[in-house]
């Protein structure tokens, strides 16, 4: 059974001062299987983040609906964990308190919160930083905390909106390995939005390519690389073949997107 079903969702933004409304997302239909890791790949401005925000319940679709385990999504909730591109740790809470935010909201006993927090702090490699405030952390550490915060809530699906987009290349590669390792251990259903082809192939079982705005699904490619994957998979011929194919697919859209910016 599909964990997440997206049924014909589209999104229009009203025009400013009498202008035509902007069509950000054409009707999109997509399902995500339980325990799958799917990446949504597309040029910037293609509506992929809009789609993710609708799944999270932070935005409402103009048409269509989203079903999670068969139940329609009407607003944000703890069953869909989210990691944002911007740094969204609560600056007044320590690393540990940030990770416990959702648990406390559930009214969980402190001892139980501590136990769960300790587990995820260890999993994202932040032991020793429990009592640090976000401003004392590097960008990579902040995003690892954000990942732990989303995972600690034990969501049914993890939504990631270019979470490593603001990090340098080396940190970004390490974060990909970290996330992939977590997925390989727990097989939590993941939907990951990115414009980085390597990132999309390396972590995913399935890459969905979107067109330039207004966004539609252009193709849906299964990534048949064995798990567990190490970073060395990026230099294999199979990886290169996927990359060549996706580069072709995305290049046409990037050109289209660049052309639109002139208007």
């Amino acid at each position, binding site marked *: 059974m599909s964990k997440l079903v997206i049924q014909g969702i589209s999104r229009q933004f009203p025009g400013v001062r009498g202008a035509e409304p902007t069509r950000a997302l054409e009707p999109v239909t997509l399902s995500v299987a339980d325990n799958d890791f799917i990446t949504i790949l597309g040029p910037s401005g293609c509506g992929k983040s809009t789609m993710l925000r609708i799944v999270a*319940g932070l935005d409402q679709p103009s048409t269509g609906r989203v079903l999670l385990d068969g139940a329609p999504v009407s607003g*944000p909730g703890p069953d869909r964990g989210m990691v944002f591109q911007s740094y969204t740790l609560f600056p*007044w809470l320590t690393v540990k308190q940030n990770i416990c935010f959702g648990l406390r909201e559930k009214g969980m006993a402190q001892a139980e919160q501590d136990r769960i927090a300790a587990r995820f702090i260890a999993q994202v490699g932040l032991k020793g930083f429990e009592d640090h405030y976000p401003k004392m952390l590097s960008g990579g550490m902040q995003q690892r905390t954000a990942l732990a915060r989303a995972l600690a809530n034990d969501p049914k699906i993890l939504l990631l909106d270019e979470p490593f987009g603001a990090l340098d290349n080396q940190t970004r590669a390490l974060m990909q390995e970290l996330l992939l390792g977590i997925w390989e251990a727990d097989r939590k259903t993941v939907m990951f939005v990115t414009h980085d082809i390597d990132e999309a192939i390396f972590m995913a079982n399935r890459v969905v390519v979107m067109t330039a705005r207004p966004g539609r699904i252009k193709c849906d490619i299964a990534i048949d690389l064995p798990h567990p994957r190490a970073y060395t998979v990026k230099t294999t011929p199979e990886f290169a073949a996927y990359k060549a194919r996706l580069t072709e697919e995305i290049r046409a859209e990037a050109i289209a997107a660049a052309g639109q910016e002139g208007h």
Partner: protein
Amino acid sequence: MFEPLKPVSPGLRIALGIAFFVAFIALWAGLTLTGIVPSLFLADPLKTLMAGWTLFTEYGFLTDIGWTVWRVLGGFVVAAVIAVPLGILMGTFKTVEALLEPFVSFARYLPASAFIPLLILWAGVGEAQKLSVIFIGSVFQIILMIAVIVGATRRDLVEAARTLGARRNGVVYRVILPGAAPQIAETLRLVLGWAWTYVIVAELIGASRGIGHMIMDSQRLLDTGQMIFGIVVIGLIGLISDFLFKLGNERLFPWSLSR
């Protein structure tokens, strides 16, 4: 030395700050001790210090200071207790903002000192009138400034909280309030400074004690030394309260220290 936005070392910062005070007092002494400005209009620094000594030893100036401090704090605390929750409500709920914002924006421009004759009519010349001046001068400013701070809450933090399961109360008590707290404290520090200017105005009229009253009395006696000493004391108390407030804010909100 004049590199834009380049920080200065702490030592140089203190030295420059003191240097300006010294230069100011030197200019003051130069103008008065040489007789360029007659002492009838401006007492020299020495006379001012001696006048201050007389004030403390013979006129019980400490009691005056005590009364003024109590009026400022009393009026300010009442204003803050009412204004902070209202400001938070206005910033959080756009309906409350639509209801109150136009009136508060208007009331903010009503000069507190212009209310003094009316307040004397309503409340007499007692403490209630003094506290009311401070209250009127502070309350609308605090409401508006806090509404703006709360309204500027980072939306991405609210969204993150909602994806973590927070509902309305969770968003208000666990995101909006802690996020705005340091700036709210900073606003209170600023408005407390303004309250000091209102209290003196309130004491210039119809008061029988307080720093402002002392200054009025000294004017009758043409004692510029006492007048200047009173003004300097107000400045010093302001400086001390500002310093204490800053210290408290740094202790309370270590996470927001900008470095």
